[in-house]
C-alpha cells in the first residue's frame, strides 16, 4: 500500500541513532551552534515542506511557510525540551503556522498549484505518464482536503502523510485522543460526502 522508503522520507520517522544525533544537534543549536541547526534544517526540510504544502496547497506559500517554521524554531530553541522528538516539535510549529495562515485566509479559496515535475518525487511513479497520473490523483485529493476545516485537514495530513498514531497527533495538536478520533471521523465523513457528490469521478 505505502512505500516504506517514501513514507519514512516524509514522515520524519527516524531510527534511534538518528534521534540521538538529532538530540545532539538540537542541544548544540541551543548553545548557538548554527551549523548544528542547519543540520536539523537539512534533515527536516522535506517533512516540514510537505506538511505545509498539503495544508496550504500552494508551492510558493508552502516554501515560505516552511522557511518561517525553521526561523521560528531557531528563535524558540530555548523552549524545546530535550528528549522530545524533534520531528514532533518542528511539525507542531509548522502546523500552528499553517492553521494561523489558513484562518487569516478564511474566505480565500486555496488554489491548487501544479508543481513542476522535477519538484515531485514518488517512490513508484517514475514514468512521465505515471507522474501525470500521480499529479491528477494529487489534484483530486487536494480538492477533498480543501473541503475540510484547518484542524480536520491537519489531522488527516498527520495521519496519512506522516503516518502518526492518534496519540502522536493528539500531542502535536495539543488535544485529546478522543478529539483526534472525532476530527478524523468528521473529516472522513465530509470527504466521503464530497466524493459521492462528485461521483468519485476524480479518483
Amino acid at each position, binding site marked *: 500500500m505505502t512505500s516504506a522508503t517514501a513514507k519514512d522520507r516524509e514522515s520524519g520517522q527516524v531510527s534511534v541513532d538518528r534521534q540521538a544525533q538529532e538530540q545532539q544537534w538540537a542541544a548544540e543549536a541551543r548553545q548557538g551552534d548554527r551549523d548544528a541547526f542547519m543540520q536539523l534544517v537539512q534533515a527536516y526540510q522535506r517533512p516540514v515542506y510537505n506538511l505545509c504544502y498539503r495544508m496550504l496547497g500552494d508551492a510558493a506559500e508552502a516554501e515560505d511557510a516552511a522557511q518561517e517554521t525553521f526561523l521560528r524554531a531557531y528563535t524558540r530553541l530555548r523552549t524545546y525540551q530535550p528528549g522530545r522528538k524533534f520531528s514532533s516539535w518542528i511539525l507542531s510549529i509548522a502546523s500552528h503556522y499553517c492553521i494561523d495562515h489558513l484562518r487569516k485566509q478564511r474566505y480565500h479559496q486555496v488554489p491548487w498549484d501544479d508543481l513542476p515535475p522535477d519538484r515531485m518525487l*514518488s517512490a513508484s511513479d517514475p514514468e512521465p505518464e505515471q507522474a501525470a497520473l500521480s499529479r491528477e490523483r494529487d489534484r483530486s485529493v487536494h480538492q477533498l482536503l480543501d473541503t475540510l476545516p484547518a484542524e480536520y485537514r491537519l489531522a488527516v495530513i498527520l495521519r*496519512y502523510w506522516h503516518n502518526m498514531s492518534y496519540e502522536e497527533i493528539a500531542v502535536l495538536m495539543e488535544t485529546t485522543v478522543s478529539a483526534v478520533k472525532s476530527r478524523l471521523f468528521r473529516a472522513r465523513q465530509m470527504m466521503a460526502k464530497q466524493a459521492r457528490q462528485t461521483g468519485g469521478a476524480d479518483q
Partner: protein
Amino acid sequence: MTNHDLYLEKISLWLDNRLDAAESAALEAHLRLCSTCRQTHAAMQMVDAQLRQAAQTVLDPSPGFTRQVEARLDSYRQSHRRLWAGMVILLVGSLVLVGVTVAAASVSLLTLGQALTDPAMLVYGLRRVGEFAHQFWLVADLLRLVVRVALAAVQQPLFWGMVLVSFLLTGLWVKILRSLYRRTAVHIT
C-alpha cells in the same frame, strides 16, 4: 449522536485498525443490514484508498531551500542586533534628555525662587489668587505670572545654555534614531 453516527465513527476507527475483533464483527453485521451505512462505508474506503495512494508522493522543496533559510537567519540576527542597539541608544538618549530637562527645570525653579523672594510680587500673586480663585481670569492671571517669571528666567545665561544643549541633544538623538531605523527596516523575508 444517532445510531448511524456511532457505526460511522467505528468505520473511521476500523480504517485505522483501532477496532478489536468483536467490534469489527459487530460493525460488519450492521453494514450487512444498513444500506445507508454501507454506502458511506464504501465512500470512506474509497477516500481512504485515495489518501493512502496520494501519501506515497513526496515533494521536495526548491534546491536553494537551505540557503534561503540561512539568509533568513542572517537577516533575523542582524535585525535582532540592530534592535538591541536601538534600544540601548533609546535608553541612553532618554536618560540624557531627562538629565538635561531636570537641569533646565532646576534653573527655572531657581529663577522662580528668586522672583518669589520679591515681597511685592509675592503679595500681588497671593492676593490675585485669592480674588480670582473661582473665576475664569485665574488662568490668564497665572499666565501673566508665568510670563513674568519666564522673562526673569531668560535673563539668566545658564538657562539659555541649557536650552541650547537640550535642543542640540534632541536633534542629534532624533537623527541617530532615524538613521538606525532606516537601516533596521530590513524585513525578515
